[in-house]
């Protein structure tokens, strides 16, 4: 069977550049993170192995568990709101009204523009004294004075979530829209003939048939949101008094701010464990869904 062997060799030759690239730039750093997490590496060139000391420290001293819980809550709300608004947008963009194509194009900018630049715009909108949101609320008499959204823990928490939702919504909307349009039209026509209303058809036909798409998108979005860095870093840098500090921001500050590479690596490893769990759930879900499709 020389032909299959040469085929395998050829396949690996084709794969080699990708494999080498990913090994050097992703796999090696991943291993290095794990190794570093057991050391006291800092700015100085040498370091010693310290066993589980870093892990002990982050879980006993400080507020690491609090950060984890905050990150999970932040992610949960952000993903849920993205899914709801994305579905809302997809249903509307799917309606057969003139202007469909233009509306679809107008949905995309937040996704295409460099994230940081969109975030700068939000930073201004959240400005308490002169920003748009606070200004409009005052003009309509909804608040008595200016609201500095990014200055208080509670509002800053929601402000960062809303900005994250804003960046994620275009992708969710377009994906849901595509999934909606792949539903055979006959089903809707049959239900329509039987006198089913629009909402009933959405609930009984569209929603169940879109379930795989919704699950896939939720999990992908969960992983992306969990890793979200730019928004919080630019808007609040984790403040005020750490109330928007998520795990990524926390790790960045430990490693790049205080230059505690060892401890930062330990925090990064905890993030990796969470991501791996999400990943496994995603893989299982995708496998289950594709099996269901085959039946």
């Amino acid at each position, binding site marked *: 069977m020389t032909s299959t062997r040469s085929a395998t060799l*050829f396949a690996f030759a084709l794969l080699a550049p990708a494999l080498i690239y990913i090994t050097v730039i992703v796999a*090696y750093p991943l291993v290095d993170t794990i190794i570093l997490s057991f050391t006291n590496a800092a700015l100085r060139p040498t370091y010693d192995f310290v066993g589980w000391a870093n892990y002990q420290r982050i879980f006993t001293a400080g507020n690491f568990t609090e950060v984890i819980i905050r990150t999970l809550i932040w992610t949960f709300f952000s993903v849920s709101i993205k899914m709801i608004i994305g579905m809302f947008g997809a249903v509307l963009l799917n309606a057969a009204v003139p202007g469909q194509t233009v509306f679809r194009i107008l949905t995309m900018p937040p996704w295409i*523009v460099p994230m940081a630049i*969109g975030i700068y715009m939000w*930073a201004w909108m959240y400005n308490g004294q002169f920003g748009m949101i606070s200004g409009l609320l005052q003009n309509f008499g909804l608040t008595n004075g200016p609201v500095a959204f990014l200055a208080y823990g509670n509002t800053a928490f929601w402000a960062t979530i809303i900005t994250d939702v804003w960046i994620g919504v275009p992708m969710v909307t377009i994906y849901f829209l595509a999934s909606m349009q792949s539903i055979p039209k006959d089903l809707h*026509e049959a239900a329509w003939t039987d006198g089913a209303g629009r909402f009933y058809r959405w609930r009984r036909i569209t929603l169940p048939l879109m379930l795989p798409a919704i699950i896939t998108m939720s999990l*992908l979005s969960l992983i992306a949101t969990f890793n979200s*860095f730019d928004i919080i870093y630019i808007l609040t840098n984790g403040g005020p008094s750490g109330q928007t500090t998520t795990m*990524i921001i926390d790790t960045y500050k430990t490693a790049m701010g205080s230059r505690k590479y060892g401890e930062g690596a330990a925090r990064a490893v905890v993030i990796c464990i969470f991501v791996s769990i999400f990943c496994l759930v995603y893989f299982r879900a995708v496998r289950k869904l594709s099996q269901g499709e085959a039946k």
Partner: protein
Amino acid sequence: MSDVARTTEIAAVDSPAIVKPKARRRTARAMIDRYQWYEVAAIYLGIAVFLFFVLAPFIEGFLVSLKPLAQLFSTPYSFIPKNGSFDAYFNMWTSVPMLGMHIFNSFFISSVVTLIVVVIVVPAAYAFARFNFAGAGMLLGLFLAVNMFSGAVLLIPLFRLMRAMGLLNTYFAMIVPGAAFLIPSSIWLLRTYMLRIPRELDEAAWVDGASRLYTLRRVILPLAMPGIVVVAIMTFIGAYAQQFIFALTFNSKTEFMPLPVGLFAFFGKQEVQWNELMAASFVGILPVMIVIIFLQRYLVAGLTAGAVKQ
């Protein structure tokens, strides 16, 4: 009696005029999409609210770029600029002396990333699409898993790696890690596309005595071109939209900074010149936005296939 005849007979009984099945379906489709006036109004209202959420920062950003600083920092708030001007669009070039360079850098970094990704991904996707070698499924899964880790998590070792390779403070410090995290999703996307090219074409070329490499170059590559274009566009946008953290941490030279990081310096100042910041943002993103409008069809295709189904 054939089926067609029976259908026509039933149709004849059903409706006074004989309607062909296809035509009847078309009428049903048209009627199912017919809305009452209040439904149309509700749809447009909903779309308006939705698009306002999506576009509000851009609208506000543009209006801010027209307002003089004195008006920006005054209360009460007014949405519409009074005696607005395009001054900020002229002054920004002196406030950010390297603005032109930053715009170019953004474009340059994304283009090189795209080039690297396409060159690496085309053979890899072909390997996954056509050869059932041992461990193919596992490797594919591993590639997908890479997608799930963000560069932010691996920042410490990446920083050390870039330092060891002597890449810190060069274009490559932003290009090399940027490309790595875009390779896996591109492999998936292109593989899905290549799976749809009939295997018979490869086999025919094989029978005619073509080598494997020749088959890839002369048979698969031309047919996969639309897929490769989608991958290139998605990669470019990924590289363009996400350039921040690597540029922030691995490069400190102003002349290499891409637009987002170049403008980030604005934030360090005591009094942020918001009107110029917004003006610079708009000018910086304009070229790409115009291109994107023409390519939106590819974007939808890429996005849909990108969220892996198989």
